[in-house]
């Protein structure tokens, strides 16, 4: 089966290409990225700032039930062309990860399908690889936590 989401990370390059085809017209795909209310729904983060214009900015946040900030990210929007592309930066606050540059291309395949090509440029190859490993390490931690929980119940 053809995978809908593909990741390309070539050797000796500090970039990453994420591509995905959607059963959505390109207008809806673009809207999912530019309307705060919709972004909140699929990203699961609260949108604090969202200015879709050249030299605008955005900020996302996620808090736990106690109100502690779990995740906060922000960026500058460099350029926006409706239903075509967004060029922006992305930075996770309070993490060692440097800012990254993102080129989002929204491509219409036909009236009902579209494609997103997201090219991310990192500060260094090591930074890119660290980002790739992030969910892997999180997965390991989750497995460890799960194991810890089971062990605790056995005590």
């Amino acid at each position, binding site marked *: 089966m053809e*995978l*809908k*989401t*593909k*990741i390309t*990370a*070539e*050797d*000796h390059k500090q970039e990453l290409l*994420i591509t*995905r085809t*959607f*059963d*959505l017209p390109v207008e*809806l*795909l673009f*809207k*999912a990225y530019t309307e705060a209310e*919709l972004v909140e*729904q*699929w*990203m*699961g983060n609260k949108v604090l700032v969202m200015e879709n214009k050249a030299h605008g900015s955005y900020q996302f946040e996620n808090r736990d039930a106690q109100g502690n900030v779990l995740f906060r990210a922000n960026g500058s929007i460099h350029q926006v062309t409706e239903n075509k592309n967004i060029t922006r930066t992305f930075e996770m606050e309070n993490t060692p990860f440097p800012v990254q540059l993102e080129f989002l291309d929204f491509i219409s395949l036909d009236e009902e399908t579209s494609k*997103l090509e997201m090219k991310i440029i990192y500060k260094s190859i090591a930074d890119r*690889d660290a980002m*790739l*490993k*992030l*969910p*892997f390490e*999180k*997965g390991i931690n989750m497995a460890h936590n799960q194991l810890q929980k089971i062990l605790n119940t056995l005590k």
Partner: protein
Amino acid sequence: MNLRRDVFQAIADPTRRAILILVSTQSMTAGVIASNFDTARPTVSKHLQILTECELLKQEQQGREIYYHLNPDKMKDIADFIEPFRKLWDDRFNKLEQVMKNYKSTK
């Protein structure tokens, strides 16, 4: 984690990926592998060395020839390694698709 990273970088190169695909059909000598590429023979040898060092390929002596074949266990490690990152984005995009389909039906 270092070994994993080496494996990951090994498959990030397009020529090395092509070599893995080629060898997956049957074991081959370095000469036969090189004949499938326009790249210079020493370059292919270097790629084979990297793939062997991180155990993606295994060498097997048959008479006077050394055959390279795929190490399926190691290949599985790679799939497992990049998969969480891909899965993370895939889940996120599935959600996006669902949110927008709902949005469309309410318009």
